[in-house]
């Protein structure tokens, strides 16, 4: 094991996969000479040259579409969007081209592309630069959606995403780039579509992804002091979702709290509630509760911003309600 930052783990994944397969290339704003807006692509231009690490104009729709076309012709592009806020500009290419090409061509054209970059809330970046948009992508058949919460998962999942023959939306956490963690030495991958039980427990299941995993883990620690034994599950992949692991946990704990940064209406957690109520209805001892981002654009003001996103306290309170402890 070595200790790496989340961003370094992502960098290693790209580097290793570019060494492994000549068809893999990286394009995006500032990914080359500038080493990436968040330094995730540090050193790749030097090592692989400008043919494989391409600085693009600020033209998300254009360069994402170019990547889809390159994938149709047999390449395996990694598209870096500087942040997922700007991915909205490329949604037509991701949804209408990448996700549907295989289907509407009767199976002739798969799109092996990774569409990656940081998402989620960040510090006082206000309404247009601080939001969680994963639910948008999760809605679309043909896409896979991956959101790692640790350096080890970041590396293993990104390697799997690059090797996947389907378009993978890979949403990193903007505020986790500096997070350090143990990363296995040598070659390894983490499979797409497999959740991880971060903390086993018997009293309640807390489901959280990306940086909310860390909030959930802190909440679980506090709850332990109250005598509540929470099981924390990180789905890691949102589509395809590892429903089995979620459902089995709820069958054991009989209660679930789902945490996400995104907006509540039609959020990722709403889908999880649907799956759990359908597959574990008779096991539930309380309504499934959700802790979500507040249903507002992100405010700039620091104290308002704090109110807009889930924190440890809100998770603890939700668990108390789910266990009738309040």
């Amino acid at each position, binding site marked *: 094991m070595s200790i790496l930052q989340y961003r370094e783990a992502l960098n290693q994944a790209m580097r290793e996969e570019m060494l492994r397969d000549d068809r893999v290339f990286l394009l995006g704003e500032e990914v080359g000479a500038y080493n990436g807006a968040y330094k995730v692509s540090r050193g790749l231009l030097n090592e692989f040259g400008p043919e494989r690490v391409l600085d693009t104009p600020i033209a998300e729709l254009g*360069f994402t*579409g170019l990547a889809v076309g390159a994938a149709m012709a047999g390449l395996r592009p990694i598209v870096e969007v500087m942040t997922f806020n700007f991915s909205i500009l490329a949604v037509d290419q991701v949804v209408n081209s990448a996700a549907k090409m295989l289907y509407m061509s009767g199976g002739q054209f798969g799109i092996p592309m990774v569409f990656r970059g940081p998402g989620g809330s960040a510090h006082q970046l206000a309404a247009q630069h601080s939001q969680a948009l994963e639910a948008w992508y999760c809605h679309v058949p043909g896409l896979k959606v991956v959101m790692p919460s640790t350096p080890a998962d970041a590396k293993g999942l990104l390697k799997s995403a690059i090797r996947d023959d389907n378009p993978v939306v890979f949403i990193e956490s903007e505020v986790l780039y500096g997070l350090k963690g143990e990363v296995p030495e040598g070659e390894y991958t983490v499979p797409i579509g497999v959740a991880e039980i971060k903390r086993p427990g018997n009293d309640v299941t807390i489901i959280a992804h990306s940086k909310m995993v860390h909030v959930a883990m802190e909440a679980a620690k506090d709850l332990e002091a109250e005598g509540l034994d929470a099981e924390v599950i990180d789905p890691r992949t949102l589509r395809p979702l590892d429903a089995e692991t979620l459902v089995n946990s709820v069958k054991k704990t009989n209660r679930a709290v789902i945490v996400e940064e995104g907006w509540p209406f039609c959020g990722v957690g709403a889908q999880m509630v649907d799956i759990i109520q359908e597959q574990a209805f008779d096991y539930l001892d309380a309504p499934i509760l959700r802790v979500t981002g507040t249903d507002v654009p992100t405010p700039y003001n620091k104290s308002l911003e704090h109110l807009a996103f889930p924190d440890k306290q809100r998770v603890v309170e939700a668990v108390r309600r789910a266990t009738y402890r309040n």
Partner: protein
Amino acid sequence: MSSGRGVAHATGGNVAEITASSTLAERARRLSPTLLKDLLEKMLLIRRFEEKAAELYALGKIGGFCHLYIGQEAVGVGAISTLGPDDYIFCSYRDHGQALARGLDPGVLMAELCGKVTGCSKGKGGSMHLFDKRLGFYGGHAIVGAHLPLAAGTAFAARYLKEPRVTLCFFGDAAVNIGSFHESLNLAQLWKLPVVFICENNEFGMGTPIEKTAAIQNLHERGGAYNMAHAGADGMDVLAVREVVAEAIERARKDSLPTLIEAQTYRYMGHSMSDPTHGIYRTKAELEEHRKKDPIKRFISALETIGVATQEYVEETDNRIREIVEQAVVFADQSPEPGRDALSADVYLP
């Protein structure tokens, strides 16, 4: 718009004059009778196929949106005649003509229009999403302008893989006003991609004349904004299109540089089968005036002038093509519908 002899370059902001070329018959004389007959037969095939498609649409055998190519045959046929077997083609949703020009079997095409499993996209794409990887036919794309970046992408891949493959990308006049046009052309020139963008200016984006939506008259001059070679071509003259596109293809293949071409053409039918041919946005007289410049009639007349085709040959050929189209309908009619299992197939690769 003159038929292009040379492709105009934008250098230092100056667009060179496009020199007028000789008559269609004179230019035809320089080409082999085999090639000329092939061009004529392809145009006739498209015309007869599209007339039949209109019938099947009226009968309810073809559903959804169905955009016919009648009137524009010279553009697809002339342009695609310049390609090699490994080159890539992208189209908008008005894609039947280019697919036939590329050699897609008419039966397989008709089956796709009818939603049959034997169609080129297994009946799941339909009229607007024709694909045939083997032919380098990379689709039928139905969001205006959205396939231009894809075309830049296959061109990028060709350069990346050091393959001498060129991409030819067709789109309508209305696409020049959308952001993806700008982003694609800028990237193509910036990265020196072997792609030829060919704008089929049929004068209308659905029911709106292009002069009401574009702030420039000669659309190909937009290429100048990217320092990209650009040219106009008479899109009702199959050899003029061929000449201009051939030069652009050579530039792409030899120098890995893009070109923007505008082929001035005209569609005889409505925007799609659910739209009127005339009445709201153009008069019947206007339509008739354009029909006098019919690309097929003009070409037949030129071939007769130089003795490559006789009236008898044309009639025979037309009858043979009508029979091919009839057989295409029989094939489509007799082909099975996709099974229920097709619904969820091909959403993901394993």
